């Protein structure tokens, strides 16, 4: 018997005991109809070859281990960024259970969201009654200040009309006529979670700015000199938005963060559950029309929202998840140009410190090859930072990246001598990445939690940056934006590099040289 009351063995130790090992071996041989181990080994080796890679890249229909989620996840992410707002997803209820679980597993926080719980009868007759009852229940139970509606693919396939449904629900008294119920159609079979972010944010701005679905006069823009800030879908939203607020305050810029979910995904444990916390006030959301300009930190999260804002007369500027020195320079200079405020001295010092740190450590990163995957903007921002460090972002893969994104990546590679052998892979998945890592190995892999399977299979050490990160805690609390954020990313990369050197030089009497105490 292996188990012990004094020292309780967990799953990772328990099953290594001889009784369990014997049991599992017997199970396999007698009952599982296993393949010949030699055959398994042959296929395992074959799956590493260029020949396999070619077949793998010839796939036209099958997707294996994609690095993207579906639109409504992004819509929910946006909705909770507004004061007292409850996301309401019209369609099947299981989807909502999934979004809530997914967000909770990443942020280690509650994630509140309701569904209209459509079932077979709604599939036949439409989900109008679900909308009518659902809005009334949500309004009465959870007392939100706003209910932001989006859709699952079920509601989209049967063609439910949110605008008409919400109007009817209001007529039936589900919620007061003047109550804010912005909406966005977010079909899961178009784009990804970043598209859902875009649609939902545009839906909310459209609601407040352009007459609340025909129930109020459109707002007339009177420029007030403020800056609107949009973070985009971002696993580091908690740390990043707080860092940006600090930067705005250092520069004395008046700002409005749109979809500010930095507090709702970081509530204190003090005896009270806050279903709502922080967020962009509804007043600020409406008044955001008067801003001088809007800054989007993620171009591909705001492809519809930014033109919508520009059409209302604002200057808009889009970045690609800026990380590092030059990208942050550009961000700050843009802010300074638009607002006329000089870049704060304190930020200049932070810049110097980041450059200092990069200079101190550059010898350990220079020339290292990296593979990166993730959302299109994050990939761009990280690749640009690696180029600054003299590293090579050899494979940059984005399942939800477009052809246009790939061209933009190529332009980035072309801008640096370190980008010479680098390639962008739009629309590919992590099974493609597996072939890339086997056939064109790199030193490190940057990606989300699912990258651990690639790390295990290919031996490429994984640096966890992205969304979701389920298996490491609290990193979302630290920014990756601004010079301080760049410092965090630098340290994260360096830690992995040094850990790997130590791991590979720690065999006494064999590799004890290089196991250095000073680096």
């Amino acid at each position, binding site marked *: 018997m292996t*188990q012990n009351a*004094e020292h*309780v*063995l*967990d*799953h990772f130790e*328990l099953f290594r005991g001889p009784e369990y090992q014997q*049991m599992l071996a017997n*199970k396999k041989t007698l*009952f*599982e109809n*296993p393949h010949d181990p030699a055959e*398994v080994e042959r*296929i*395992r080796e074959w799956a590493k070859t260029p020949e396999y890679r070619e*077949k793998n890249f010839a796939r*036209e*229909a*099958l997707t*294996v281990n*994609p690095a993207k*989620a*579906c639109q409504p*996840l992004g819509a929910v992410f946006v909705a909770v960024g507004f004061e007292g707002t409850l996301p309401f997803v019209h369609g099947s*209820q*299981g*989807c909502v*259970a*999934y979004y809530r*679980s*997914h967000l*909770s*597993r990443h942020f280690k926080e*509650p994630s509140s*969201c*309701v*569904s*209209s*719980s*459509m*079932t*077979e009868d709604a599939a036949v007759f439409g989900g109008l009654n*679900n909308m009518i*009852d659902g809005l*009334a*229940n949500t309004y009465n*139970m*959870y007392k939100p200040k706003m209910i932001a509606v989006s859709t*699952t*693919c079920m509601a989209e*396939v049967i063609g439910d009309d949110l605008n008409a449904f919400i109007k009817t629900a209001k007529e039936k008294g589900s919620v007061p006529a003047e109550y804010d119920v912005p909406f966005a159609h977010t079909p*899961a*079979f178009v784009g990804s979670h970043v598209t859902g972010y875009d649609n939902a944010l545009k839906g909310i701005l459209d609601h407040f700015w352009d007459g609340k679905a025909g129930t109020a006069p459109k707002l007339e823009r009177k420029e007030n000199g403020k800056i609107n800030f949009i973070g985009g879908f971002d696993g580091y939203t908690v740390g990043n938005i707080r860092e940006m607020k600090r930067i705005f305050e250092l520069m004395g810029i008046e700002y409005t963060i749109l979809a500010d979910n930095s507090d709702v995904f970081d509530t204190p*444990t*003090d*005896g009270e*559950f806050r279903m709502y916390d922080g967020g962009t006030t509804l007043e600020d959301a409406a008044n955001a029309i008067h801003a001088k300009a809007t800054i989007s930190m993620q171009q591909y999260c705001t492809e519809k929202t930014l033109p919508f804002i520009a059409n209302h007369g604002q200057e808009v500027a889009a970045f690609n998840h800026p990380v590092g020195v030059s990208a942050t320079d550009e961000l700050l200079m843009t802010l300074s140009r638009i607002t006329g405020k000089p870049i704060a001295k304190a930020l200049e010092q932070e810049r110097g410190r980041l450059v200092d740190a990069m200079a101190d450590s550059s010898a350990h990163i220079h020339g290292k090859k990296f593979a990166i995957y993730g959302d299109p903007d994050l990939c761009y921002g990280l690749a640009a930072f690696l180029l600054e460090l003299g590293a090579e972002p050899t494979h940059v893969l984005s399942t939800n990246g477009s052809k246009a994104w790939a061209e933009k990546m190529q332009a980035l590679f072309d801008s640096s001598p370190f980008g010479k052998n680098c390639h962008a892979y739009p629309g590919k998945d992590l*099974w493609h990445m597996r072939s890339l890592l086997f056939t064109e190995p790199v030193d490190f892999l940057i990606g989300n939690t*699912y990258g651990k*399977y690639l790390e295990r299979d290919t031996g490429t050490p994984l640096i966890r940056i992205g969304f979701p990160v389920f298996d490491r805690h609290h990193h979302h609390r630290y920014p990756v934006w601004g010079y301080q954020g760049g410092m965090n990313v630098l340290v994260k990369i360096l830690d992995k590099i040094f850990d790997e050197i130590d791991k590979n030089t720690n065999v006494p009497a064999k590799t004890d040289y290089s196991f250095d105490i000073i680096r």
Partner: protein
Amino acid sequence: MSLATTQSVAEIKARNKQLIDEVLKVYPEKTAKRRAKHLNVHEAGKSDCGVKSNLKSIPGVMTIRGCAYAGSKGVVWGPIKDMIHISHGPVGCGQYSWAARRNYYIGTTGIDTFVTMQFTSDFQEKDIVFGGDKKLAKIIDEIQELFPLNHGITIQSECPIGLIGDDIEAVSKVKSKEYDGKTIVPVRCEGFRGVSQSLGHHIANDAVRDWIFDKVNPEAKPAFESTPYDVAIIGDYNIGGDAWSSRILLEEMGLRVIAQWSGDGSLAELEATPKAKLNVLHCYRSMNYISRHMEEKFGIPWCEYNFFGPSKIAESLRKIASFFDDKIKEGAERVIAKYQPLMDAVIAKYRPRLEGKTVMLFVGGLRPRHVIGAYEDLGMEVVGTGYEFGHNDDYQRTAQHYVKDGTLIYDDVTGYEFERFVEKIQPDLVGSGIKEKYVFQKMGVPFRQMHSWDYSGPYHGYDGFAIFARDMDMAINSPIWKKTRAPWKDAPRPSLMAAE
């Protein structure tokens, strides 16, 4: 300290009834009427818990439930390790459920084993407009080329499949024929079907019956010689290794486990199950259907068991043994005796730290009742429980064998109800899922996820009980719960007192 321990049963019942009345007040009239049927205070001696169940969730209330796809792909089929399960439709469903359920297995992932992978047809608009059957056929070809050692394929339908009229059965038949009778199983588990995960379990069970059992060639040479002691473990998903810490006990008592459904299971095991002499059924809710089918068609008896906590384990080992001869009955006694010292040591260590502590549960499947005995072994008391997707037969079993007089019962609880109940009852521990975990921890209430074992486990069997006890102690007696209130908040501020 919980309030419950200082109150009489009559007081508890009165308080619970009042609590139910209070939460119902928040709802619009129609909703209050519907929800009232799902909430009750258990009366000892009644044959069920007095609640309606397995009904549609109400829109907008924040149900905790999932969907039929989750029940089929996520629960029943997903753990079958040597088959490839295609999440057929848009990308999200497969992404959110990717490797999320901790169904442990042994195998070379990506080569002969595929559990922690996400295969999807990633539907685009054109697939919705023109249909996805051609794409599905091509996907099967590509799987055959790139994953040649797979033993079979299942097609797990997401919502759009049933709405756009795709014929996945036809594609499956054609492709199966093309690949020499390969097992290809279409599953109609679209998320809008039924009211919860539950229908997905049933649909998945029926798919095993129709597309696996019915296709096994009765003339084929058996893969192994039968023995009189062959059993199959049904309804154990091997979360954190649960099925392994169960299997070892059955084998130690002299039985031979020929199949695991479905944690660490394989197609060969599913196919061999009709040769079992007894099906032992842990999660009744998700796999009673196939057990009943095997009883009717193959004459295999089935027996429910409970491997949570030493009392229920011993009871279950004896119950299982009663289907066999004295050799097995003696084997059961030998196993119980062997682990008794370990159980005594675990209880001696943890019971003094947990005695009298109260628990509220809200889980799926079998756990809202099955874990009660394990808590009681540790001197703890379950004061409230409910099923995410239970049926009346679950509530009957709960009433007849598990819950105490006065227990608060809540079926398909809403977020609002659960918070209010916990706030008022103040249990020492809440056991529920990831969506509930942080809500209650923010409130300062110790919590354990009782779906994923909060990334721990196994909890089944004697080995698992040691971990269960340790985990409950760790949750309840963590020093952090004494720090949720800032110390300056406790001291009354004299100036304010004076002002009053």
